[in-house]
């Protein structure tokens, strides 16, 4: 046997272990040094190759799936989902009978990533399912805490932005890296007609300490698109405090912690599917869903949506990520009237005017580089240094002098991620120390304020609700708004404290109650504000305010679901004695107002302030409805009365007005 033939047979035998080398080849190798060296050399190469030729392999799955998603988005477009919706969804709230349960086994576990195919909604309404809407907030928190990273691509369709641009499309790419890395890139993929249209390309990025938003300025109020001249702007914030709400990180698009914080405003429609993903469909009014849109609307021009428009959100049953959400116009003449004034065409309640679909979602953690904030520079850049000075967190964790601000004994499992100071300045003559805690997209901050010199509680407004914390501590609470987080203020003899975050109220209250401080009610003088024209007293309970009134006060016997009295205020001038009661929903009141009932003796109906105000019948009297202000006014028994609430339309307001009873008779 020749060497070459023997070596080939020996080589084959290496690759097919089941087939031994022919005896002749083995014999040849035993006697031939050259072939023996070949066998030994081949074995060494094998060992070396398998142990050494294994370079680190990159994880390409997210990029691959994103390309596939983008390819689908580019070629498939958005299917019309309205036709696929089950009839019981299309019909809307009016036809829905009772709160529906959702599928059992809503696990909070996360998947590594998935692509959501377009459309594919299957109406699988089922009875007898187990998890109730009331469970949603806690499930969301568990899901939110589990997220270290997130990447998603949303395909967006907006209808009726302008008469000559009836359909706009966008691709939004969202990335998150816990605790404060957030990035969104909005690309306008609309084909515009000839003209000076401004493409709605915008971006927002933050790494926690810095923040930057860039994009076109919104059209000025009252100026219809294309509103030529809307320049691109760039806003940069440095020295950003932890989870600063004035330079927001709109993470509700990842897990809608603000939107679904309270079950009282969410109607669970039932189990469903989005593509291949099991989902839960929930419905709410647009006014309660605005944080879901904040990742788009931070800059640029977008079509207006009516507060009572219906938003249907399909949440992934495993992760609670919104997979799809659509806005359906509300029915009724009020909405039609509003649409005409806004320059919108007739819009059917069955056809969505806004759709966002997640084409790709992954929980892979993006690189830190993805959240690098570019240096500010150039014309049109507005910069703001908020002045926060980060300190190493171990400073807070180390005992010793100087004294450290107190830490809460319970933080809902969130870990300390940032600590630092906002030194006193001329315009802010008090000093703040802030602790930031986070896990996933769940976060809270604890602020200690020293040198506070104002006669009001720090961080909350005059209608903050008085609450008793678990340990019996007195505190003031305000629900989340579109610009502020839920927050609890505590007053002590030495400092003010503010606990804020996107956790549910019960968790925030427990955190605040675990602070090792002795909180007391704020001084009486903080609640009474005198000026030359009279005196205002705020921070009152409804009972206290009614007792002070010297005219017949009315209070609602029935309130819309979830609303309850938060606080009251009285005002006295030489001519007028007034009383305001604010009703709010505890989780979030995104318009910042809720429902405000004002009554005043000695005051008459003021003259109309806008052309769209109209006369309506209220409680047997002639009143006035101001759609722009969402305010109903009338005079009854010689007392001026008004109800105002941005979330209410005329019908809702008349129902509240109709339930008013003399104080003491109201239930």
């Amino acid at each position, binding site marked *: 046997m020749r060497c070459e033939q023997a*070596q080939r047979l020996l080589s*084959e035998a290496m690759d097919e272990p089941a087939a031994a080398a022919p005896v002749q080849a083995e014999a040849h190798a035993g006697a031939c040094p050259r072939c023996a060296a070949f066998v030994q050399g081949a074995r060494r190469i*094998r060992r070396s*190759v398998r142990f050494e*030729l*294994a370079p680190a392999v990159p994880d*390409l799955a997210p*990029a*691959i799936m994103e390309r596939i998603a983008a390819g689908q988005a580019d070629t498939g477009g958005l299917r019309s989902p309205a036709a696929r919706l089950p009839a019981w969804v299309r019909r809307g709230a009016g036809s829905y009978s009772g709160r529906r349960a959702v599928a059992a086994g809503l696990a909070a576990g996360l998947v590594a990533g998935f692509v959501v195919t377009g459309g594919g909604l299957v109406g699988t309404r089922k009875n007898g399912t187990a998890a109730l809407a009331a469970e949603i907030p806690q499930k969301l928190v568990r899901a939110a805490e589990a997220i270290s990273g997130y990447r998603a691509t949303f395909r967006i369709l907006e209808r009726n932005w302008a008469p000559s641009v009836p359909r706009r499309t966008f691709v939004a790419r969202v990335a998150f890296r816990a605790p404060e890395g957030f990035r969104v890139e909005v690309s306008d993929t609309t084909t515009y007609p000839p003209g000076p249209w401004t493409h709605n390309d915008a971006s927002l990025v933050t790494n926690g300490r810095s923040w930057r938003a860039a994009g076109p300025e919104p059209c000025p109020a009252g100026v219809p698109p294309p509103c030529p001249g809307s320049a691109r702007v760039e806003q940069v914030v440095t020295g950003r405090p932890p989870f600063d709400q004035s330079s927001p990180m709109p993470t509700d698009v990842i897990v809608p912690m603000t939107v679904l914080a309270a079950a009282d405003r969410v109607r669970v429609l039932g189990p469903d599917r989005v593509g*291949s993903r099991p989902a839960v469909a929930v419905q709410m009014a647009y006014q309660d869903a605005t944080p879901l849109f904040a990742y788009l609307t931070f800059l640029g021009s977008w079509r207006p949506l009516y507060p009572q428009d219906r938003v249907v959100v399909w949440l992934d049953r495993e992760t609670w990520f919104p997979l799809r959400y659509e806005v359906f116009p509300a029915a009724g003449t009020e909405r039609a009237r509003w649409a005409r004034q806004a320059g919108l065409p007739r819009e059917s309640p069955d056809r969505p005017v806004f759709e966002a679909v997640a084409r790709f979602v992954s929980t892979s953690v993006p690189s830190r580089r993805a959240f690098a904030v570019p240096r500010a520079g150039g014309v049109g850049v507005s910069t703001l240094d908020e002045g926060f000075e980060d300190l190493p967190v171990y400073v807070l964790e180390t005992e010793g002098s100087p004294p450290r601000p107190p830490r809460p004994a319970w933080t809902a499992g969130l870990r300390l991620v940032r600590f630092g100071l906002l030194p006193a300045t001329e315009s802010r003559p008090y000093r703040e120390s802030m602790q930031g805690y986070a896990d996933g997209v769940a976060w809270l901050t604890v602020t200690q304020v020293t040198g506070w010199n104002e006669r009001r509680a720090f961080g909350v407004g005059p209608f903050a609700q008085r609450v008793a914390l678990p340990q019996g501590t007195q505190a003031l609470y305000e629900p989340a708004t579109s610009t502020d987080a839920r927050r609890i203020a505590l007053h002590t003899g030495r400092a003010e404290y503010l606990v804020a975050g996107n956790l549910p109220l019960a968790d925030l209250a427990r955190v605040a109650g675990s602070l090792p401080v002795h909180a007391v009610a704020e001084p009486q003088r903080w609640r009474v504000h005198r000026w030359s024209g009279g005196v205002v007293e705020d921070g009152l309970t409804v009972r206290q305010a009614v007792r002070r009134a010297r005219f017949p006060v009315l209070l609602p016997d029935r309130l819309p679901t979830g609303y309850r009295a938060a606080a009251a205020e009285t005002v006295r001038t030489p001519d007028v004695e007034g009383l305001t009661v604010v009703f709010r929903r505890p989780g979030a009141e995104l318009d910042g107002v809720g429902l405000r009932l004002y009554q005043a003796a000695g005051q008459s109906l003021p003259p109309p302030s806008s052309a769209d105000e109209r006369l309506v019948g209220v409680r047997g009297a002639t009143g006035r409805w101001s759609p722009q202000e969402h305010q109903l006014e009338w005079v009854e028994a010689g007392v001026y009365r008004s109800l105002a609430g941005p979330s209410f339309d005329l019908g809702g307001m008349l129902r509240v007005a109709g339930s008013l009873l003399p104080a003491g008779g109201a239930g």
Partner: protein
Amino acid sequence: MHEPEPHTVRLAQAGDLAAFEVLVRTCQADAWRYAYHLTRDRTTAEDVTQEAFVRAFRSLKTFRGQSKFASWLMRIVHNCAVDAQLRIRRDRVLAERAASGIREERAVAPATEDRVRLQEAVDRLPTKLREPFVLIEVLGYDYREAAAVLGVPVGTLKSRMHRARASLMGFLGTEEAADEV
């Protein structure tokens, strides 16, 4: 070789994109390694791997299960790598870089001397020998699977593997290879 579960492949073929991602995660390492050895460049290998999976996704319904899924995929990786190399050749600048031996990964990889020498030896193999060598020695394919990927008869493959081994030993020095064991 990492072969996904047939059930996962069927789900992906039926349009379940979560299942397709499982296929990606199961096979991406082998796909990238193969692409890397064919293209000799990390970045190009990433591009090739991505492109291969995108092409696989588009033609998933044509996969009839007559071979292993991984083999079918490697065939696509192979084709993508060939396409990428053709593109690179057309790009004069990149060709010049390749000719001057600039390989960015070498500078950063914590490589031992042996590893560098072995890698260089594999890189010196002609493509026809390097392809079966990587499939069989690096990725653990058998002759039948590798033949399916490369589209050549098994006998040809056996011959190429023998020639590849002989060439490598020639590059590395027979004596050195022999005195180790």
